[in-house]
């Protein structure tokens, strides 16, 4: 399976702290994407990093990609209560039509 696997499964932090979650995958990818899901809602795209990129920033988000280790990390800086959600990595494999999602990391930001 090409599914990403996130680590940790759950994370609880204080508002203002940084949250880091990791994703590992199994085969070569075209790109890797991170999505956010608020409880009971649809998934919302956060950021996409291509296989030839090593780091990407978007606002308070920083994503890294290490294709040699087949891993990615998502860092949320200066977290807010509104960042409480589940975060999923998804891999896009060349030649595949689908995105394959991992099991997600549930982040709780305490006020």
């Amino acid at each position, binding site marked *: 399976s090409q599914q990403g696997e996130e680590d940790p499964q759950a994370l609880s932090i204080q508002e203002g702290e940084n949250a880091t979650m990791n994703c590992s995958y199994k085969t070569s990818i075209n790109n890797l*994407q991170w*999505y956010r899901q608020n409880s009971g*809602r649809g*998934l*919302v*795209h956060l950021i996409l990093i291509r296989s030839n990129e090593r780091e990407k920033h978007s606002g308070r988000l920083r994503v890294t990609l290490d294709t040699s280790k087949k891993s990615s990390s998502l860092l949320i800086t200066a977290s807010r209560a509104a960042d409480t959600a589940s975060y999923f990595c998804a891999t896009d494999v060349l030649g595949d*039509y*689908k995105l394959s*999602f991992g*099991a997600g990391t549930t982040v709780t930001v305490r006020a």
Partner: protein
Amino acid sequence: EPEVTQTPSHQVTQMGQEVILRCVPISNHLYFYWYRQILGQKVEFLVSFYNNEISEKSEIFDDQFSVERPDGSNFTLKIRSTKLEDSAMYFCASRGPMVTGELFFGEGSRLTVL
């Protein structure tokens, strides 16, 4: 901002009944998807659809499932004879014109099979 819309938001059905979940993807998108998520669990790929045919499907997408794009705007998922284990949140997504890039998801249809 264009969005993917799904109906119904929640459907309760008896085991063995047929269910149709409807989606209106973003209008200029070309690739359409159904995913499902059993409560609190991972997001599982069911099927992708391009150029009026299934482009890829998972092991979950067996003969009881079918998809259709009947009129160029709606994209439907039919479950012919529902089972208890079909209870889940079903998400429609679309993207395009490229097959790579971000997926745009609807808010989901919660299916409860009794």
